[in-house]
């Protein structure tokens, strides 16, 4: 058996350094990362990267910063129970080295969104991928019409990006609302499921793109509300969570019918996937 170097291997990682790392909640940690040698990660909002720690493995993580942020990019990682990779990632601190492959997949069609109103809906950790789009829109604010952002999470303690949310709340050029499933004594905001925020939004369905990102269970209910608002299926976009193991449309883990989520998605126009059973 002969071993050959393959410099163009799709499995080759780019070396990267963690510039800063901080806990956002008890379970989510935010990393600011730069590729070595000043190389930039050329990505679109909504794309993901395969993050590598040698000896532990690789995991697909959505990029939560906007490409308008120069020099580095951000990943928000939730440590899950027995998740070997996410727990190892949480041990990483500023100055540590990691590997990156990507970016991968189809992101949000920001060019298509231009000139339209936006209704951006995130539930739970869905704010991580959606934040890449929110910040992109805010950094290019005049390219878009009315911008509504709806955010939901379990409790105020689970709220991610709290400092940024404060600024979103005060900005006059967007409408921002958030809700928690379960309140807390010092919580003065909405309590209830995210679906409860949608009826109150004033929107022009023919001129609005809705974007929904959240846990699998959320899609059906939110999309039902959006449809109730007369937003057509081809103006609703979703970002689907699957196990994108290789990112290359090969390994099969992320496959939904004949679609590879890692290459054909993770962002899909709802119309394309709505009849694929099990997609959402």
């Amino acid at each position: 058996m002969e071993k050959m170097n393959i410099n163009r291997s799709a499995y080759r990682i780019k070396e990267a350094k963690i510039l800063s790392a901080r806990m956002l909640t008890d379970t989510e940690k935010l990393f600011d990362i730069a590729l070595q040698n000043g190389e930039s990660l050329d990505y679109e909002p909504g794309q993901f990267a395969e993050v590598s720690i040698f000896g532990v493995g690789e995991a697909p993580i959505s990029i939560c910063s906007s490409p308008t942020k120069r020099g580095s990019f951000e990943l928000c990682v939730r440590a899950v129970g027995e998740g070997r990779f996410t727990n190892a990632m949480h041990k990483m601190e500023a100055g540590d080295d990691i590997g990156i492959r990507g970016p991968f997949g189809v992101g949000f069609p920001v060019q298509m969104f231009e000139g339209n109103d936006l209704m951006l809906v995130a539930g739970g950790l869905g704010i991580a991928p959606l934040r890449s789009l929110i910040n992109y829109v805010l950094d290019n604010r005049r390219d878009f019409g009315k911008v509504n952002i709806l955010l939901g999470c379990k409790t105020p303690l689970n709220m991610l990006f709290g400092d940024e949310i404060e600024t979103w709340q005060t900005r006059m050029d967007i409408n921002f609302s958030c809700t928690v499933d379960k309140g807390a004594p010092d919580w003065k905001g909405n309590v209830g499921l995210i679906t409860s925020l949608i009826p109150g939004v004033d929107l022009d369905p023919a001129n609005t793109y809705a974007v929904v990102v959240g846990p699998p269970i959320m899609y059906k209910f939110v999309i039902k509300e959006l449809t109730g608002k007369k937003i057509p299926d081809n103006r609703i976009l979703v970002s689907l969570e699957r196990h994108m193991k290789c990112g290359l449309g090969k390994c099969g883990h992320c496959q939904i019918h004949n679609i590879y989520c890692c290459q054909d998605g993770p962002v899909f126009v709802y119309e394309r996937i709505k009849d694929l059973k099990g997609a959402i």
Partner: protein
Amino acid sequence: MKNVILRKSRLNDFISILATMEKVMAPVAKGPKHFAFEEVKSAKEISLNYIPTILPPKKYFMPQHETLLEYDTREGQKMRAVAEVEKIVLFGVHTCDLAGVQCLNIVFSDRPKDLNYLIRKNKIAIIGFECNFYCDEDASCGLMGNYLPKGGYDMFFTDIGDYFFVHVNTQLGEELMNKTGVHEEARMEHMNALEALREKKKTIFKNEVDVDKNMIPELFKKGFDSKVWDDLGERCISCGNCTNVCPTCYCFDVYDDPDFGAKTGKRIRVWDSCQNEPFAKVAGGESFRSLRKDRKRHRFNRKFRYPVERYGKFFCTGCGRCTRVCMARINLKDTIRSLAKEYK
């Protein structure tokens, strides 16, 4: 490219001479109805009258384990991307397995290309071997139209009594032929004999399920919620045998295999199976094909419908391996027949 013949009495010369120059892999009998591709040095080790080997030639193109990266974390996250390759000659590959390799070629050349596979593939010479009769009752090469050669080989052998008719299809095939030098030119009588055999085969190999192949993708679409899947789900034990032996199943997992000391190691690719429950599970715990019927249906659709939509090609070769190895006796032809019965 050209046609030659090889006297059967010279087959051993052909193989032994070839084996002095190249590593030759061929079907070898391992037990009753049990064959495997293994390295051979002479023709007497080879069982040319074989039913499909337990593992298809896929194992040479996409090994069960292969190193993708060698890493070193002593200073940062250093790595070297590698491909493990071995120059071999595969001898005696049936037409169903030639079709299987052609399917894998499509997947791994689809962008982004998989260089590990493509580099390895180019080091493998393929010598096909024609089936004159059905290997057994589990095959469905009649339905899939794979009982006749459709390319995918460097040389192709057909047994015509006391000689093999050999179609030399590529320059590599011609080089191998010339290096061994035991062939004779094919004459018109040989061509006619081949022609006659192929004609006769058309009366032997028939559509085994009596369902028009071109209607099958639509049948699977209509039958997505069929009770056929409930039945299969109840019987399937999720062992993954069917995916392991399938010549076109290519799903894999990638994980790290640290050396002692854990500072260095390898990132490896291993075969995986969509029949395992955690296959489509995400970090948050959601499993997108949690039921056996979901997984069984997915696998069948990945043979008869999804690749037709995506690559314009069926990913079932008709080799019959999944039926032969199924511990729950799930039968591919019966499954198609049941669907057809329900939706006709």
